[in-house]
């Protein structure tokens, strides 16, 4: 249940994206953080190493490795504390097995991935959006992931709170897919006086602790509440007993993991858009690239070009129906990304009637608004001739 909570140190502030994320975590009720320093996410662990120990219920662990950090966070969540970890490319890869465990055991934790260029050590101090598929498909097996992409320091704050709320509500790990630019950028933000936070209401006398409610979501239970929980990494029934050797029950269980996201997908849509009413060309973007896209679209409008913008905030699950509706009349869709053009494949699959153009960018730098403007002009100009 969402509960309004007063924020002590609200008001206008100049914060770095990573700091805003850490601050938001504390406000959202995060009381445990485990992490391992990695560029460009390190400011989050630095900030929380201080802030959490100043909290009455707070605890902090600088883990021996990325894997341990992810595991400790899951352990702490079952201990009853909202928990988070933060990392970047190589660390995100190392966390994948435990992340899959969190999905399978339906553990609500938040994982921040401040993306850097890859593969391998890649570009530690440069930005990218190359982990967009890893965020969804990184761990083995079938599952659905909830994943948010902030584009500003304000959104680093807002989306972190949202990530905690969605994690608690859907009993699943949620990924905040930031990037180096938004992580290291300093901006003025407004910390609200009140935020809505999903609160844990303990379930009493529950003989099927992993049973599901009408929305296909399991109960909010944790250890030491007298449930005698068995948190099991093998596929399990509502009592936690393994069913991995039973094909029919196993199929139902994995189906439930997927359905609890897919069937509630309507609650998981977060799209900003502007100038779509009469737009002939639209830029669809997420994360920091959406900022360049916004600028390009606004300049285009000033020049009289019928351009529009769609900014996707919850990138996974993919907002298929909503995107189809929004872009129904748009002839040309431009998808700029700081990767080889990955998310564009989803958009191409979804918007079959539109001409979907991928604008990939590698090398760790963001698209300039003028670059995108040229593409918008080219696309509309060609049709004009």
């Amino acid at each position, binding site marked *: 249940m969402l509960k309004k909570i007063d924020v002590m140190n609200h008001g206008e502030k100049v914060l770095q994206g990573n700091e805003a994320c850490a601050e938001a975590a504390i406000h959202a009720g995060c*009381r*445990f953080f*485990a992490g391992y320093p990695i560029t460009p996410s390190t400011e989050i662990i630095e900030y929380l190493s201080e802030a959490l*120990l*100043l909290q*009455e219920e*707070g*605890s*902090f*662990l600088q*883990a*021996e*490795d990325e*894997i*341990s950090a992810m*595991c*400790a*966070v*899951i*352990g*702490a*969540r*079952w*201990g*009853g*504390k909202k*928990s988070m970890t933060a990392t970047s490319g190589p660390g995100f890869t190392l966390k994948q*097995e*435990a992340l899959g*465990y969190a999905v399978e055991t339906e553990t609500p934790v938040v994982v921040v991935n401040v993306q850097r260029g890859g593969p391998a050590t890649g570009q530690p101090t440069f930005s990218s959006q190359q982990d967009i598929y890893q965020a969804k498909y990184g761990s083995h097996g079938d599952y659905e992931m909830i994943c948010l992409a902030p584009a500003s320091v304000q959104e680093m704050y807002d989306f972190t709170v949202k990530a905690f709320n969605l994690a608690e509500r859907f009993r699943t790990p949620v990924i905040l897919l930031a990037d180096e630019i938004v992580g290291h950028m300093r901006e003025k933000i407004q910390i609200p006086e009140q935020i809505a936070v999903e609160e844990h209401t303990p379930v009493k006398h529950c003989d099927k602790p992993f049973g599901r409610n009408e929305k296909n979501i399991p109960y909010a239970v944790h*250890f*030491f509440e*007298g*449930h*005698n*929980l*068995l*948190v*099991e*990494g*093998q596929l399990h029934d509502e*009592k936690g*007993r*393994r069913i991995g050797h039973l094909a029919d029950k196993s199929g139902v269980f994995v189906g439930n993991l997927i359905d609890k996201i897919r069937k509630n997908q309507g609650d998981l849509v977060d799209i900003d858009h502007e100038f779509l009413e009469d737009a002939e060309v639209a830029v669809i973007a997420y994360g920091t690239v959406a900022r360049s896209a916004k600028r390009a679209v606004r300049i285009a409008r000033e020049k009289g070009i019928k351009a529009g913008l769609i900014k996707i905030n919850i990138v996974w699950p993919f907002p298929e129906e909503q995107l189809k509706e929004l872009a129904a009349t748009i002839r040309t869709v431009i998808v700029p990304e700081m990767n080889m053009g990955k998310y564009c494949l989803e958009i191409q699959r979804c918007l079959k009637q539109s001409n979907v153009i991928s604008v990939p960018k590698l090398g760790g730098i963001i698209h300039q608004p003028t670059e995108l403007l040229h593409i918008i002009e080219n696309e509309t100009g060609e049709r004009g001739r």
Partner: protein
Amino acid sequence: MNPLIERYIKKDSLPYIFCAGCGNGIILNAAIHAIDELGVKEDTACVSGIGCSSWIPPYLNMDVMHTIHGRAIAFAEGLKLSRPEKNIIVFTGDGDCLAIGGNHLLHAANRNINITVILVNNFIYGMTGGQKSPTTPPGSKTKTSPFGAFDDPIDGCGIAMSAGATYCARWTVAHPNQLKKAIKEGIMHNGFSLIEVLSQCPVQAGKSVFQERDPWGMMEAIKSQTIPYKSWIPDKPAGKIPIGTFKEDNSRQEYTDKIRKLKEQLRGMQKETV
């Protein structure tokens, strides 16, 4: 079913997944007796990783996490840090704790965090079908050492103690009462405790390590290789495995106590500044 055991296990999960004569059931018995005699069932959670030994706690009618390979100690540390007042027991195996999860053992021992690790050493990878483990004796012909194992075995107790574990004991399953006592001491000890249990795997280790497939025969064979020690001596007689309580040190501060004290200090300072 023994009434005490029955009280502590989920009867609808029976029979145990373990092979006939496996030492895991005996370790489960010892743990149940220890928890029962201390009366700490409601305040204790168990964590395990992957492997035969990690199937010990899922039968317990308690809060249990059956996690991923090698990371049981990492999960347990998070759980302990979130609930410092509770007892956390980790069940792990020689592969789980000393191979894939070795790093977590080192760091948890160094932190002296109050968790009790029961390391079940059966000298083999049993669940995957009898491959060499970090503790397999040299010369053993396993599925992955067909010409005889040539890696020197790892000493779990030695590693844990040198990393800073403050309670350390080793027994075999043929010493059930001593094992029970060690588990009790481990739970009561305020710091990182490691209890290594030498156990029999009559199916896999019986075939490739001991050439003796009778469970009791293996238990006697393991027992005959051991030599009782009152404290840790690094130089041990050739071919012998020391058993006993090697270390019980209450002088080092426990990790969650450190955090608690630091937080108290910080709160005091905050009040002063206000």
